[in-house]
């Protein structure tokens, strides 16, 4: 069975460090397997292709927020360095503000993170709905990756539901129903 299970894009964390920390989707011939860390719980859920009613993508401001936080943190460290250097009257010391080893060590990763975040593009919230359940797909939180995943999911779901559209077209004239007892 394992060879018929395909990884759906997204969920780098799950691929790198495993599903205890990450979250990822897998596509099998008849269902989508949602597997991994959802905060404090570990989840393993199957969404059958024939049951999926809707997938929605909704852009979020998370990318903007992350960039803003990282940039302001970097700026804050620079300001702090300036203040410390000014107080200790060593502004003209080796390296100055920007090449100060401590500052560089802190600001470089922050700036790197901000740039990486910008490169990864807009963030979004992806939700897969069935009649009974709405799955917030954490691994599809970047638009580019989510759209790529949809390219894989959509044909599979349409293929699985091909019969449904036909069934629906049949008019249901015979509606009278004698209350049937269910199983005890």
């Amino acid at each position, binding site marked *: 069975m394992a060879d018929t299970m395909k990884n759906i894009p997204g969920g780098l964390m799950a691929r790198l460090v495993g599903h*205890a*920390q990450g979250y990822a989707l897998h596509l099998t011939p*008849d*269902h989508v397997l*949602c597997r991994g*860390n*959802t*905060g*404090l*719980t*570990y*989840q*393993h*859920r*199957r969404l*059958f292709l*024939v*049951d*999926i*009613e*809707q*997938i*929605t*993508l*909704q*852009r979020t401001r998370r990318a903007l927020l992350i960039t803003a936080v990282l940039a302001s943190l970097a700026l804050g460290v620079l300001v702090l360095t300036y203040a410390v250097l000014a107080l200790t009257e060593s502004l003209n010391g080796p390296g100055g503000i920007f090449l100060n080893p401590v500052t560089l060590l802190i600001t470089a990763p922050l700036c790197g993170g901000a740039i990486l975040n910008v490169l990864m593009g*807009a963030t*979004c*919230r992806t*939700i897969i709905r*069935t*009649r009974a359940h709405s799955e917030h797909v954490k691994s599809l939180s970047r*638009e580019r990756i989510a*759209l790529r995943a*949809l390219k894989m999911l*959509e044909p599979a*779901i*349409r293929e699985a*539901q091909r019969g*449904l*559209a036909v*069934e*629906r077209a049949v008019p*249901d004239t*015979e*509606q009278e*129903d004698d209350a*049937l*007892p*269910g*199983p*005890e």
Partner: protein
Amino acid sequence: MKRPQTCPRCSGPLRPDAAGLKTLTPCPACRTPILVLDFPALYTSPSAPPARPVPAMEGAATCFYHEKHTAEAPCCHCGRYLCAVCAVYLGGKVYCTACLERFDEQVRAGKDQDPDNILMGAQRWNYTTLVLLGVLVLGFLALPIIAFLIAFFLSFSGAPI
């Protein structure tokens, strides 16, 4: 039959052509870029006509629960014959309600953790996250204690604090 599409964020109505879009487009109401993909399952409403049982002929196999109904399919789990009323089709397989109830109980009770036995899905505590959180909390709690110990021993060594 088709219900109008609504925005996942503000629940406002979407453009009539929203279903055919392939990229995120702003919602007419809240301007949030969205993409809504509908599948046929959305329109097979729960009010679809219930399956009608076929009255059993003499000598024909009958439903385990209804002896007057012809059996349509066996439950893939317990093997009992089921009529059109009792058969529950799920993910391309047939189950009886008794088995579904049992699966549900097992999943709820957290007994059944084997992925291949879990029918609908399951959730359990993520121990790795819990342990990491625990270490973090303990670390924070220990910080003042360590600081205090260092200060305590430094005061003995006579070094100025």
